[in-house]
């Protein structure tokens, strides 16, 4: 080479901590290895799952020779957007009926959060977002790079392995008026700890009284309880009071469309006119980022959501996934109890959704990886979806050993 790269002094970026777990897992040659890292659903056989209804929808699209591959509009597939809004806000939502909601198709949850954050950074007057402590690792980066200042509010109580509700109320109560607040709609990631309905109502009242702007991240609708409507309860509660909010939706998990990057950002506004102006500004965020969203995944989702039979089929398959996870929780809890592992493990069955925040510390996690080939994030979060009846005993042993031998 004649000349040197102008980027010669660039250092290698750190591995993403969550995806890095799978990288390490893949390198391990042990037959007992277990990947409880990334939040992707696995069957009892430890395999990824393609929903039958998704296969059917895809086949329909492939068989339709009249379909073309033209650019979608900047805001994405119109059907998909309308149906997504109905899914999260409820088909009878007054906000939808009054045309006060703008919904744009984005690249899964990440893309929806980023587009929403960029919009806020440009047009909103209070550029601080409060995120729960802890939260999904990518949240800080997404909001930070969009130009928002990121602060934390208390959320998880390690002592109870539950919600630090007092701390939450205090911290949100102390936030400057108008601040943005990130809320996990259900199945909090990484802790699995969700507020009760009563607690949500208190949060809502506090937030509205202080003019705090809710930004919901809904990545697990249908996965928490197995019921799509119940899992959207927190979001609908806020929308029902007539106030404004943002909601990012992902179809990665609940439709198993991880790699196709399907999601939606909705902004609920006071009036239809505002919603329309907001949408036009969202387009200005999207166009210089990637011009328009990908067609394939959204087409599959729209096909399913608009057909009553396919929708019902989906809810059945979704419930089966949620039920399997719930049963894994029970099995692990029972196994630890039977083993007599020291400590209170009831949080395993109290926590909700794909993840359990075990309470194991990073030394214990490292020990479990080294001695038992069990992979999880160093914060002790395990993906229940990665467990099966067959592997519960191995995990139980590992936890027992970690708790009794490592401080």
């Amino acid at each position, binding site marked *: *080479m*004649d*000349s*040197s*790269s*102008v980027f*010669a002094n*660039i250092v*290698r*970026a750190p*591995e*993403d901590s969550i995806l890095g777990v799978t990288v390490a897992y893949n390198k391990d040659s042990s037959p007992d290895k277990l990947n409880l890292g990334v939040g*992707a659903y696995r069957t009892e056989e430890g395999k*990824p799952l393609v929903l039958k209804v*998704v296969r059917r929808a895809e086949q329909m699209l492939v068989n339709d020779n009249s379909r*073309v*591959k*033209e*650019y*979608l509009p*900047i805001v994405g597939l119109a059907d998909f957007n309308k149906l997504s809004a109905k899914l999260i806000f409820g088909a009878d939502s007054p906000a939808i009926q009054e045309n006060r909601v703008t919904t744009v198709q984005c*690249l*899964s949850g*990440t893309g929806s959060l980023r587009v929403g954050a960029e919009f806020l950074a440009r047009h909103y007057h209070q550029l601080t977002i409060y995120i729960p402590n802890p939260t999904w690792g990518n949240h800080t*980066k997404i909001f930070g*790079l969009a130009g928002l200042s990121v602060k934390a509010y208390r959320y998880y109580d390690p002592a109870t392995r539950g919600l630090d509700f007092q701390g939450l109320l205090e911290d949100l109560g102390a936030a400057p008026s*108008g601040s943005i607040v990130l809320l996990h709609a259900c199945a909090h990631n990484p802790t699995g700890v969700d507020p009760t309905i*009563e607690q949500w*109502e208190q949060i809502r*009242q506090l937030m*509205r*009284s202080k*003019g705090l*702007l809710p930004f919901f991240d809904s990545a697990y609708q249908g996965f928490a309880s197995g019921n799509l409507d119940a899992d959207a309860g927190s979001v609908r*509660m806020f929308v*029902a*009071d007539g106030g*404004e909010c943002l909601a990012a939706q992902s179809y990665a998990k609940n439709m198993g469309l*991880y*790699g*196709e*990057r399907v999601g939606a950002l909705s902004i609920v*506004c*006071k009036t239809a006119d*505002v919603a*329309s*102006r907001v949408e*036009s500004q969202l*387009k*200005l*965020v999207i*166009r*210089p*980022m*990637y*011009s*328009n969203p*990908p*067609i*394939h995944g959204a087409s599959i989702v729209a096909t399913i959501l608009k057909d009553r039979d396919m929708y019902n089929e989906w809810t059945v398959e979704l419930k089966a996934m949620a039920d399997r996870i719930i049963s894994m929780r029970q099995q692990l809890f029972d196994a630890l109890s039977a083993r007599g592992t020291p400590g209170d493990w009831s949080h395993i069955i109290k926590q909700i959704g794909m993840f359990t925040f075990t309470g194991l510390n990073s030394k214990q996690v490292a020990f479990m990886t080294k001695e038992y080939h069990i992979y999880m994030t160093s914060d002790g979060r395990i993906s229940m979806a990665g467990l099966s009846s067959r592997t519960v005993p191995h995990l139980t042993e590992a936890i027992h050993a970690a708790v009794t031998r490592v401080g």
Partner: protein
Amino acid sequence: MWKCFSTTSRCFSTSTSNKALKWWDHVAPAPKDPITSVTEAFLADTSPTKINLGVGAYRDDEGKPVVLQCVREAEAKIAGCDFLESVSSAVSSKLVEESVKLVYGKDSDIIKEGRFAGVQALSGTGACRLFAEFQRRFYPESQIYMTDPTWSNHHNIWRDAIVPERTFHYYHRDSKGLDFSALLDDVKNAPDGSFFLLHPCAHNPTGVDPTEEQWREISYLFKVKNHFPFFDMAYQGFASGDLDRDARSIHIFVEDGNVIGCAQSFAKNMGLYGHRVGCLNVLCNDAEQAVAIKSQLQLIARAMYSSPPVHGILLVSGILCDPNMKALWVKEVKAMANRIQSLRTTLQKSLEHLSSPLNWEHITNQVGMFCFSGLTPEQVDRLLREFHIYMTLDGRMSMAGVTTGNVSYLANAIHEVTKFG
């Protein structure tokens, strides 16, 4: 209507007591995108003679969008396969390598030695944006020099990445060709080590490309000035019909020892518009540095959308990694380019036949998807209102929208609005 949630039957109303804050009242309606708004308007038009010469999307001779045969076959192969959570890194690397081969040539040392950092991106826009963000992160004081004119979204992309832009001379309005000496002057006068955005072939919007000789001079100057050339290759195959030939400018730069970056899009040449498939690569000193740069690019992507959609990646992979499919693709690209080329000739001849007072040679001199017609905004507006012919206000016509069925109508319309000079 309002749900009661608590057992103490406390219902809440649409009360305005909670400071019904009007968050967004100050938000003004955004200006419409100058390119996509043309298509929107076209779709709303009910006239049977309407023609869309707006967006750069290929059409067949019936004016219909095309799904390439190689794409159909690739799609049939992957239908029914497992949905992937992500593409395996082996598949991903292979695809990036095949994409990058299109840029540097399949036998290039760059590929053999792994001297490039390559990542999939969300088509050309996404690849440009990734690079712009990367440029800002590691050269925060830098600017980007863009051709005058350039694709309208280029301005948006670098602006949103917070990289200030400058323009350099490119299009010569009188000759409707390249303003070569002014271009060289601008390149010379730019501070050493400036970042430039170049179109390697089929310039958008002008269709004006430097000759090979001119590229050599530009490349030499870049080397002397130590400038960084970033190529946006959205139309490889559409300029000459030959994919390799269309990358010639990039080969020249690399032969001269320039260290470059390149955004590729498969939207047009594979007809994969809506799937958002592209590639970004940056040349490096060695494979180790390539790993570092790639990791930084992935970091930027992770906070924006994580990874591009798998479906499009599988389609491109299915085509590029299979010699038969790739050969079919190469033929289909040539056919698309040929059709456009032949309609250019027909349109020019038709205008000459109508005894137009103007010189229309630029229609066949310019290459790729677009003709920079030289029509004024007023003339463009007349074409829209009187003839239902749609193009962007700068007079850029997407030749892909011209067919044997509408070329006479088009020629007549253009003649009508220009016959008085």
